[in-house]
């Protein structure tokens, strides 16, 4: 188990590094896909089987597909997705500083933390998927739909707001661009409306 953890840790960090160093966004998406896959394996190691499956379905299936679609959409009909230089020259020193400070905080916290003696609430061992076993779908679903029903409903509301927001932002409703042609059309419509009003 420990060996598996360290192999996964190396793979996770390597794929995360690949995500932020890749030249093209598509390569980053591929790195992120590998990262999410290794993360799902780690979730299985933590006996969070439902979350591991959700990780693969929602992240790898839905969110990464969205990224790929946006990259394809933005790259179509124009020159290949070219970008200016990264912010490395300007931001390398501050970023290194921030990263070092954050890691130092974490290292200090880990070194000073008392040995954690967990209070065991459930049962880890048991047939996969059985009710009452920690991390099983039955266990998770029971907790979600009894004690945590309100947060669940609130996330549904958040998702609905996101859908409405995306439609408003990027939907077919084109932003108003004043052009001469459109101005002429508006002027004609107004004249006609005034003429109709005069006839009445």
């Amino acid at each position, binding site marked *: 188990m420990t060996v598996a953890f360290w192999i996964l840790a190396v793979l996770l960090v390597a794929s995360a590094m690949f995500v932020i160093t890749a030249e093209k966004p598509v390569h980053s998406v591929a790195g992120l896909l590998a990262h999410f896959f290794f993360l799902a394996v780690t979730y299985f190691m933590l006996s969070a089987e439902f979350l591991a499956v959700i990780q693969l379905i929602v992240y790898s299936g839905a*969110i990464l597909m969205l990224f790929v679609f946006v990259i394809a959409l933005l790259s179509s009909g124009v020159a290949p997705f070219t970008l200016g230089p990264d912010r490395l020259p300007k931001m390398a020193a501050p970023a290194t500083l921030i990263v070092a400070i954050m890691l130092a905080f974490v290292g200090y916290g880990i070194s000073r933390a008392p040995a954690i003696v*967990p209070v065991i609430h459930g049962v880890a061992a048991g047939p996969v998927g059985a009710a009452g076993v920690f*991390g099983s779908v039955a266990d998770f679903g029971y907790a979600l739909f009894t004690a945590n029903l309100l947060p669940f409903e609130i996330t549904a509301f958040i998702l609905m707001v996101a859908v409405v927001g995306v439609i408003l932002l990027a939907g077919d409703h084109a932003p108003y661009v004043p052009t001469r042609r459109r101005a002429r059309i508006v002027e004609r419509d107004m004249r006609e409306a005034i003429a109709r009003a005069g006839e009445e």
Partner: protein
Amino acid sequence: MHPDLLPVALANYVGLSSVIFVIGVAGVLLRRNPLIMLMSIELMWNAANLLFLAFARAWLNNAGHIFAFLVITVAAAEAAIGLAIVVVVFRTRTNVDVDEVAAMKG
């Protein structure tokens, strides 16, 4: 070793999660492509989720699972909105570079 205890020490998970989180921070700081910045934010979400699940496993308490589930939902909403903003910005200009998008600057 007791079968209910976490096989790998919790501090290892904390360290791994913080390293991934910091890689995400570095990605946001160093890259100027908004897509890769959004992906770095996804890395940070997932580092937090890993920590939730590790602590949930250590205590055998599935409250962490519930929270990780909610985080995944909110991350999906965030990715959708962020990508929509990228698409909208790209419609009005020819390249995607966060440093040139200053319309919402105060």
